[in-house]
């Protein structure tokens, strides 16, 4: 094995508005190795990949390619330098066919004077690439008509058809069958023998040991360490991934569980949810853990009237509830703090006060008009109570930091007096200070007798805040445990 790194990152820093995604990261990638990159969601792996691919540009730090300082200015340049990336979320063009996608921007041409695309060769080359991966696919089929697993394999076929020196695979197996995974692994082994450097991002512990040579762990935008993949144990990796003192961050205090508030029986939706049942009590925080794609958000949407159900019953306060729209759910006393707050939770060009009151305008009505005076009073009250840092309640949402935006979105649920609060990734992408404010608020709400469902991919958070924990995988609940019997291994075991 060649020990000279083909690519080195030194002290890479990348900032986004409100978040520092990479806080000075070093990484060496050797030719002929499979280097596995692990870390919790939001640890900065994808950001690093995008820097490598020329999509993002680092704010600080140096990149060395084959020992020389380099800057990767564009995806075009990355490809020319032999860097090929398979992204986690696919970059295929649904309206084009398989062959066109595989050879996009690398179309073979023929003709001396008039260079035209050699479609015949393009399709036969595409067929050959697919054949090598044992994929039985017609290169002329539109990508939009295919399954997610097909998409993943097409992305891989695309990457493998490029003569590359560095191949990046971002969670390539998450939608593949066992046989396809095997096929991919044998291709990776061959590439490794050819001296290609492979950066492999994965959540699956067993894969790290299977194909990794070295493993690097990221946490909160920092590199925790690089170890030999054959020597390190799964437990050690998990410890590196999570490793922080849980008790100090989470203000959990024991509370007696109250009466049953919400009961969900056999929620099913074809291809999404499979027989999801659980109960939620007053004063309880129910943690919902699982990997991204385990359909936890869909459970929230089902209860909130935003996902049509095939079967199942929702009982709130002893009354049967059939939410057809989010409006029904809000009126019945359910509040949702959505995962993607920018898209589903807030009106970024409106003021803080307009956002806070947006879901319960009825409460501001005086006669036919809205009372702007009451709107201001209510908002100022909440801003004080939640420690929201905003110049005034008239400030536009977009100028607030991520953590404060999150608090305002949360306030929206409080304003409508929801009894059941569903928090979908409540602390994703916000700083520690704002996190603690939100945790404190959750405890207060629970003490007031509200029931809280907290969806989170952050396992320490789930362990630290929940009274009871449910784990989901592929649309079904795979484990349920009380706080005192839960640990990281148990949760990961049920989620993977």
């Amino acid at each position, binding site marked *: 094995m060649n020990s000279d790194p083909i690519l080195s990152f030194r002290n890479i820093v990348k900032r986004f508005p409100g978040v520092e995604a990479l806080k000075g990261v070093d990484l060496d990638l050797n030719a002929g190795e499979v280097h596995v990159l692990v870390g919790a969601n939001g640890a900065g792996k994808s950001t690093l990949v995008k820097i490598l691919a020329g999509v993002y540009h680092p704010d600080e730090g140096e990149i060395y390619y084959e020992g020389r300082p380099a800057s990767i200015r564009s995806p075009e340049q990355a490809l020319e330098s032999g860097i090929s990336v398979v992204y986690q979320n696919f970059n295929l063009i649904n309206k084009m066919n398989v062959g066109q996608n595989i050879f996009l921007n690398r179309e073979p041409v023929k003709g001396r004077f008039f260079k035209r695309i050699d479609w015949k060769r393009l399709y036969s080359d595409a067929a050959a690439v697919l054949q090598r991966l044992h994929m039985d696919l*017609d290169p002329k089929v539109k990508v939009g008509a295919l399954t997610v697993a097909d998409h993943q394999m097409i992305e891989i076929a695309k990457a493998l058809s490029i003569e590359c020196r560095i191949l990046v695979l971002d969670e390539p197996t998450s939608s593949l069958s066992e046989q396809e995974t095997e096929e991919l692994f044998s291709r990776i082994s061959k590439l490794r023998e050819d001296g290609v450097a492979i950066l492999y991002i994965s959540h699956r512990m067993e894969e790290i040991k299977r194909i990794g040579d070295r493993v690097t762990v990221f946490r909160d935008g920092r590199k925790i360490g690089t170890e030999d993949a054959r020597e390190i144990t799964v437990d050690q990796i998990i410890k590196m991934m999570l490793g922080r003192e849980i008790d100090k961050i989470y203000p959990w205090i024991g509370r007696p569980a109250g009466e049953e508030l919400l009961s969900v029986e056999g929620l099913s939706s074809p291809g999404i949810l499979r027989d999801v049942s659980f109960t939620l009590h007053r004063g309880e925080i129910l943690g919902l853990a699982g990997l991204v794609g385990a359909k936890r958000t869909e459970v929230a949407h089902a209860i909130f009237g935003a996902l049509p159900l095939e079967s199942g019953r929702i009982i709130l306060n002893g009354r049967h509830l059939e939410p057809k729209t989010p409006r029904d759910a809000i009126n019945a006393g359910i509040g949702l703090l959505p995962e993607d707050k920018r898209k589903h939770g807030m009106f970024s060009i409106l003021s803080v006060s307009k956002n806070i009151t947006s879901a319960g305008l009825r409460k501001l009505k005086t006669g036919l008009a809205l009372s702007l005076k009451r709107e201001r009073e209510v908002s100022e009250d909440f801003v004080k109570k939640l420690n929201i840092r905003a110049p005034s309640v008239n400030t536009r949402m977009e100028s607030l930091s991520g953590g404060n935006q999150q608090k305002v979105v949360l306030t929206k649920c409080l304003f409508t007096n929801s009894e059941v609060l569903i928090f979908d990734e409540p602390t994703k992408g916000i700083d520690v200070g704002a996190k603690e404010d939100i945790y404190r608020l959750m405890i207060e709400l629970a003490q007031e007798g509200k029931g809280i469902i907290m969806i989170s991919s952050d396992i320490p958070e789930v362990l630290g805040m929940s009274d009871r924990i449910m784990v989901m995988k592929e649309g079904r609940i795979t484990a349920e445990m009380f706080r005192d019997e839960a640990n990281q291994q148990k949760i990961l075991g049920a989620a993977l």
Partner: protein
Amino acid sequence: MIPQGNAIPLQGAKTGLDIGFYWERYGVIAAFLVILAISSVLAPNFLSVSNFLNVLTTMSFVLFVTYGQTLVIISGGMDLSHGSLVSLSCMASAALVAIEHPWIGLAAGLGVGALCGFINGVIIGIIRLNAIITTLGMLYIAGGLSLYFTEGRSVEGIDPEKASNFHFLAEGQIFHIPFVIILALVFLILTHVILRHTRFGNHIYALGGNEEAAEIAGINYARMKMMIFTLSGLSCGVAGSLLTARMLSGEPRVGSGTFLLESIGAVVVGGNDIFGGTGNVGRTVLGLMILHFLSNALNLIGISTFAQQVIVGIVVILFCYLGLARGK
């Protein structure tokens, strides 16, 4: 040659008889034939060689701009500057034909169109402003410029003797076929070849299909947008110059009538996806033929031009409803 199934994009390979598939693929042609058939019965003198050549000649001047618009729409944009660019090109070419030589005038007409298109492309590609807003701005700017230099008057003083070759481009005939129709056909083939047989053309589809994915594949967004909008502007330059050749004068409002509406309308009525990513220029031609033959038939039946517009509008919406034009 063109791979089978590629001529008109469709959703996946289908086997057996699938009405939706055939409807999508041949529906517009069927609709066109139905319009022709009904018109032949109802409109006197509709079914004659001279009438058809008439319609096709008038249509040809518009066809050039629809080729440019097809490229823009397939790439996921829209060019609203078309009407004014035709006027400005017409004015520029007329002025230089009058003062200088006809061929310099032609070059000026083409150049002005291409330049304005290039400016659109720079703003959209490099500064990354929205295409609709940018070209709307250019619609005003070029429209204003066409009127500004002559204070709204037309450009006269072209010597018909000196410009006789130039005049031939628009009014001449080869074997009784108007030369402008032949030109429109040549440009049709050119556009088709660009779209289907060049990497540039393939990247136009990619850009319209998924901009982010296209960029990640290394396609240069700025360069693509500049090229596409320059070609779109150039297509207006061709139309504007040919209008000068036809009228032997420069009319500052020549493009402000139906040019813009028809350039977008033809693309849509022909069944190209208004959101880009699929489509072909053949459909655009079909779309424009439907608009023009329909107007012509209504004309012959004796329906006023104002009522015609109402009917054409209804047809556009009806096409969309029937799933012939994609916009549902």
